């Protein structure tokens, strides 16, 4: 097991380097300059001075400078659009916000999703099944910006239970957390319902019941463990996406998270920030996929993850 983890981690630098180069190529060939943006044009001399300062005049100067700094000092360089801030500054202030919000949404989504899915499977065609169907339908088909705006209008605008936006206290997290949790909750409910139905009809469940084990113990202890596997494989990528923030949710609730930078940095051609945000996202994706594989082994001892690595 340890070998497997070590081997996977050893692959990280190569994968990240490839992602960096591919992203860089896209960033570089995209038309438009990171400097000067409006109707008023930047003087050629001023533009050249800026390009030199940010090593943005030639592709080999860019590649000769930034990757080295990233490897040696973990420094992604200055943001080209917000030059007072380094990419590290921006990541350091925005990533914790996104992780906090994402964690809240993920926990909420998983707990409710699994509970709803399980109950729906147990009471098939009953009231819980209908509720689960409704959640799944709404969660998958309703765009998050509509759901977020609805939450904002009802709970912040009319009822005034929660603030309309901002960041800093627990009450700020509830509405965006719920909005962000909706989609994963729907997927998880659907996944766990299907898996649960499957497991409930298996032989060992019947045996356990026949031996006199109570219904709830069978469901929550024996079945859930098995039914959780598909949810687990979904959780890896879902965690990476949720924890790095959502552009839409952050915008609607004015949350200073990382998600906005994925979109804005591209619009601004802020090359260093695009690369920084992409690398963080890729790294998290790799880590969570690894965690999911480890999680598989823990939940289901029959799965031999080391077989893949050798």
């Amino acid at each position: 097991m340890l070998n497997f983890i070590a081997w996977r981690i050893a692959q990280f630098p190569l994968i990240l380097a490839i992602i960096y180069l591919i992203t860089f190529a896209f960033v570089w060939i995209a038309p438009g300059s990171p400097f000067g943006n409006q109707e008023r044009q930047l003087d050629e001399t001023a533009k050249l001075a800026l390009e030199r300062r940010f090593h943005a005049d030639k592709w080999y100067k860019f590649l000769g400078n930034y990757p080295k700094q990233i490897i040696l000092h973990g420094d992604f360089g200055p943001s080209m659009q917000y030059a007072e801030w380094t990419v590290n500054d921006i990541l350091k202030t925005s990533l914790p916000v996104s992780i906090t919000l994402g964690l809240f949404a993920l926990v909420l989504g998983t707990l409710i999703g699994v509970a709803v899915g399980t109950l729906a499977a147990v009471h098939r065609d009953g009231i819980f099944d209908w509720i689960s169907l409704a959640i799944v339908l709404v969660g998958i088909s309703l765009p998050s910006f509509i759901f977020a705006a609805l939450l904002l209008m009802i709970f912040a605008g009319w009822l005034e239970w929660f603030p309309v936006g901002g960041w800093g206290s627990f009450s700020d997290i509830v509405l965006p957390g719920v909005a962000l949790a909706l989609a994963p909750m729907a997927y998880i409910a659907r996944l766990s319902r299907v898996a649960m139905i499957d497991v409930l009809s298996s032989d060992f469940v019947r045996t356990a019941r026949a031996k006199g084990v109570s219904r709830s113990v069978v469901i929550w202890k024996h079945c859930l463990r098995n039914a959780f596997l598909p949810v687990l494989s979904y959780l890896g990528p879902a965690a990476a996406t949720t924890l790095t923030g959502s552009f839409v949710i952050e915008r609607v609730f004015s949350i200073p998270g990382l998600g906005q930078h994925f979109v804005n940095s591209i619009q601004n051609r802020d090359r260093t920030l695009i690369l920084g945000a992409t690398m963080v996202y890729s790294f998290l994706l790799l880590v969570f996929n690894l965690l999911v594989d480890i999680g598989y082994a823990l939940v289901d001892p029959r799965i031999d993850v080391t077989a893949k690595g050798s």
Partner: protein
Amino acid sequence: MLRLLSIPAALILLMIGAIAWSSSQSTPRADFTFVIPRDVLTLDPNQMSYLQDFRLAYCIWEGLYAYDGMTLDPVPGVASSVDISPDKRVYTFHLRPEAKWSNGDDVVAGDFLFAWRRMLESPGEYSYLHYYIKAAEPYLHAYADFLADPDKNKKPDFSTVGLRVIDPHTLRVELENPVLFFLELMGMPAFFPLHEPSMRQYREVDPRTGNVTYNRKFTRPGVVGNGPFVLKTWEFKRRVRLEKSPTYWDRGHVPSNSIEQLCVEDMLGEVLRYEAGDCDWIPEVSSEVGPEMVSKGRNDVHIFPGFGSYYLTLMLRPQFKDGSDNPLSDLRVRQALAMSFEKETICDNIMRMGEKPATTYIPPTIFPGFNVKPGYPFDAKRARELLDQTAFRGAKTLPGVSILYSSNTLTFAAMAQNIANQWRANLGLEIPVEQQESKVRRERVNNKEYSITIGDWIGDYQDPSTFTDKMLSTSVNNDSDWKNMDFDRLCADATRETDPQKRYRLLERANELIDKELSMIPLYYNTNQYLFRGNVHGINLNPRNMTMFKGVWVDRRKGS
């Protein structure tokens, strides 16, 4: 069962920890709070060019002259008085001895010299304003050449530039030409002083050329300024907090103790924050929410004329990039296009924020005493006649011509479509519309790979040359590549003229050429939209859209 519950319990604990980790410390509400959709891009006066940057810069620094909060007329700032030579080419500023930096140091003439020299050696978007100073433009270019190739080019001599420190409290500025609005320029961030001693720790010296640059972190909280406020907090894309400076010379006229800027990207969120009473002022109300608020008869929406116009920029080179002929190089085609669509529908149905249809580049009301003659009116019949005189009589389209616009402004798509529809109806011409992301559009316009595009120009200072300069044949901002020698000559004559009246007459004639020759088809004069309640004082409704927080305060007694 208990073991199962331990996982969610642990996660919830983790989350509470995370909230504590990621949240910012909360401070009591500022005396004046406002919300904008974007964070400031930079607080380095050397590099700034955006309105939101300027707004805070006027708080943190002060130039030789400043602007009156209500009229925006230039008033003495760091300089208590100025001697102007009879030929209006030499300005001798006398600095007030009570002007202090926020660390207690005196503001001296050398601080201006340092900052202005930096404008020439590390140029920014507004360095061109320094070209009015004697020998500043050649110095800027010579210095750039020197940096590009220090072996071949010599380091230029800064003493050639018309700036002299006579004594710590006297600065003499020699100009290339009599610049009648020079005091007005002295209030702009490009002419602010900087406190060199506190910037030394951010100094970066290039060993090869000896060129000094400063890490822009020097503008973070702790930055030494000389304005009415001190920067206390700057959380990226969250908030900026300013507090009244205890050393500012005119602190008796600063009623607010703290100013806070919040950053809310979403328009709806912005307005909700305002309605919830979290903020006192929104300096731009989007067309998504504005018209509805106006129609409800709310008196806290303030719409007033802006300091510029929107127009269709036409590319006038005789040939396109691909070598084919440009139909727009024929003036009659341009006239036909300009006269064959109504702008009222654009203002009333698309913009809906009080914009007025335009027939001229410069809004006629913004410079008192400067006459702007109306341009081409809507006349579909005459437009058809003009088109029939050209090679495009009965044509179905103009080859190579399309309307290019930026996708980042919501209203542009509807506007382009509307104009194309009117052209089809009134001229029988099918002109395609083309949407591009703003950076892509900008690059295509820079490379002259376009024919028609939606553009705008908002003036910088209270003089018509802030508009006419854009159309000089040498200007980098002359997107249409319009070259008119008469126009250039009139502008050059105006630059040398010392009599304000005669100068205005020259610029009027120059401006008339712009409107006549149609290097752009004016669409509408822009407006500014503010949202603030009656208890907010000191916010002017001047077209220039500049707010001096020095005099702004909120009367909390009345409530909101």
